[in-house]
């Protein structure tokens, strides 16, 4: 009798302790994992979670945070994530998200649709300065949620040494699909293929768009159209000619590595290629040009990261101040100098293009860039498509697209559901 009472008491106590720990406590206090900010005190300090591409990026934000603290008196703690998405997931599940965080384009809609995000961006003092394509990318149901930090677009990188060796000149820089097929064929010889790029939706999809296709039109998935198939057929033609080979078959981890090793004379990559070449292949001389236009006109993808803010954040005002601070043209140019990203504001992007003419092609691309499909739940359908692209050389485009159509439509239905 007594014994069972003791047991009950013990178990109840344990349960109460655990439930109390699990229950929402209303006070987001700093980030997780030893960040130790005290957001509860109402905006005197910010904990900011970033994913750093390298020491340059983290270093820039440390310095920017120091300048911001000097200006406003708000303490800022920059936390560099090892695995951004996982750490964010933990933060949100523990009701303890960082006050401000990097949010990549492919996660944005998922976060917004799940109600994780504070739609603060429209209220920023400089909300009108951002590039329209980016504002669209970070809007969900017509509300501008998340201020773009910077962006990248895809361009075509050309190995100038190989280019000259093949007897090609500036006049030969491809502007159409036919040009691209011609130069890719003439650059292909022996150990070098003309063109390479990741065998994934984020590269292949550009060619589907250039053929005039798109994956989603409003509430309908339009993956299995003839235009999209035409994009895949064009790539299959290049593969059949031997002028397009994907990085795994070139013993390279990604397009940039194949390019740096000289196994591909042209690749489709973004501005990150500059840093990668400078670090790993400093001798590689190359130029970046805009992607050639297909029958449906020019098209490229823009990949952007924004400053996410958790919903009902206690530190909303000071976090907004920080976002305004780091998106001023001066700060954006400092960031561009430090780690080579393209500023997200019109003014910043323009001065960037004049200051770094070698990257002008990426800035030019933003005029016609579209965002890759990234609605909540699309990731699984896209990664299934990436898996099926392993057979792109032999599979029929309509079969590839039919399965993408099915998967994407069911994802869209449940996202809009």
């Amino acid at each position, binding site marked *: 009798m007594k014994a069972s009472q003791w047991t009950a008491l013990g178990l109840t106590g344990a349960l109460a302790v655990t439930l109390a720990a699990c229950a929402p406590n209303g006070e987001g206090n700093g980030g997780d994992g030893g960040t130790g900010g005290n957001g509860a005190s109402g905006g005197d300090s910010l904990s900011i979670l970033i994913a750093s591409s390298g020491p340059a990026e983290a270093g820039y934000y440390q310095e920017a945070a120091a300048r911001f603290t000097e200006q406003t008196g708000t303490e800022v703690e920059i936390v560099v994530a090892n695995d951004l998405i996982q750490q964010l997931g933990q933060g*949100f599940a523990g009701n303890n998200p960082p006050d401000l965080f990097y949010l990549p384009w492919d996660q944005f809609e998922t976060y917004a649709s799940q109600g994780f995000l504070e739609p603060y961006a429209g209220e920023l003092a400089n909300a009108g300065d951002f590039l329209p394509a980016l504002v669209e990318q970070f809007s969900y149901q017509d509300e501008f949620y998340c201020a773009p930090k910077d962006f990248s677009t895809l361009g075509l990188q050309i190995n100038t040494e190989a280019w000259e060796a093949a007897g090609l000149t500036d006049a030969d820089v491809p502007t159409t699909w036919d040009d691209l097929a011609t130069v890719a064929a003439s650059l292909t010889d022996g150990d070098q293929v003309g063109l390479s790029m990741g065998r994934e939706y984020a590269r292949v999809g550009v060619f589907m768009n250039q053929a005039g296709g798109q994956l989603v039109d409003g509430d309908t998935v339009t993956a299995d159209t003839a235009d999209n198939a035409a994009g895949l057929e064009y790539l299959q033609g290049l593969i059949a000619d031997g002028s397009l080979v994907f990085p*795994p078959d070139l013993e390279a981890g990604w397009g940039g590595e194949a390019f740096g090793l000289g196994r591909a004379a042209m690749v489709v990559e973004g501005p990150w290629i500059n840093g990668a070449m400078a670090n790993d292949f400093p001798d590689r001389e190359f130029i970046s040009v805009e992607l050639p236009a297909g029958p449906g006109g020019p098209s490229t993808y823009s990949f952007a990261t924004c400053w996410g803010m958790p919903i009902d954040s206690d530190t909303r005002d000071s976090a907004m101040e920080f976002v305004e601070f780091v998106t001023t043209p001066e700060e954006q140019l400092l960031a561009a100098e430090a780690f080579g990203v393209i500023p997200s504001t019109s003014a910043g992007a323009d001065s960037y293009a004049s200051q770094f003419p070698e990257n002008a092609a990426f800035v030019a691309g933003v005029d016609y860039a579209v965002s890759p499909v990234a609605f909540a739940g699309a990731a699984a*359908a896209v990664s299934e498509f990436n*898996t099926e692209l392993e057979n792109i050389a032999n599979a029929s485009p309509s079969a590839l697209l039919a399965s993408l159509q099915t998967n994407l439509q*069911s994802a869209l239905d449940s996202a809009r559901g």
Partner: protein
Amino acid sequence: MSTTRASARPRRGGGIRRGEARAGYLFIAPAVIIAAVFLLIPIALAFWVSLSDWNGFQSPLNPRVNFVGADNYAAITTEDGLAQRNFGRAVRNNLYYVLLVVPLQTALSLFLAVQVNRAVLKGRGFFRTAFYFPSVTSSVAIVIVFQFLFLGTGAVNQVLRAFGAQGPNWLNDSRGVLHIVYGAFGADTAPSALADGGALGISWWEWLAGPSVAMTVLIILAIFTTSGTFMLLFLAALQNIGSEIDEAALMDGAKPLRKFFSITLPMLRPTLFTVLTLGLIGSWQVFDQIYVLGGGASILTPAYLSYETSFNEFRWGQGAAIAFILFVFIIVLTLLQRWILRERSPKKRGFAQRAAARNLSEGGIR
């Protein structure tokens, strides 16, 4: 201390052992609380998550979370779709992984243990350390080393080339090993009987694909890293077998092979059970290798799928459901294995074993 308790006891009245139960519960309370906080409550909470539509925002017990019944389980097992197909693939991959890893690692570790247990072996300490070494190294580090070894132009393929064979591009090769074998016999595409039917969203032909070439690398890796640990368990058990038993077998004229299968192996049965169980559990939960390699359909496993579904897609309910199905799998398979390895009464043994037992006992009497 004990005297105060003893003198305090009678005051509460009752028998001489009256207060002992209470004291006992008090003593086990820390362990019970720790088990509850770290095991029972998380498991109960995870079970709730698997029945809910929690999206990973705030506590799973907050009022916006709805009970959805078995929807999450249905999505990965019975409803046609990507979630079901991915789960099917993950189970298929992991099934082949378990089928190859568990027997091979057990056999290899037993073989190594027997070898390093031999008194005649010179430098036993060196070999024991060398075989145990992969087990104490971080598996993440070993995966990265394997990534380099199994590059298309890596060391493994260089060696194969020296023998005139052309190795595959290991980790990037998603073809099923058995599909390659069927292909060698001219069966490149699925016969219609296998292409149409299927389970868990993938066709029988896909089920029969075998592990992908990429998965084979992970299988080799797992055998390489874990056999050292299990060798240690076998070694400890082998050293418990008294030398008089060996001598008795010798006197009976048992040859080494016969001695091993009729005497050593049966005496190792409890250890064998431990090793098989640990191996089975560990290989159904393979995660870190997949995580380091970044996932992908050809090496997807349920544990990794659960992680990806939860953290990247915010379908925590489905992720938890996968974890629970995996849990049931492991329990069922462990019970099955326990049943297979149960102690049988001598009557039910095979003729050879019976004969051996008779020989042995008669030998002992004589």
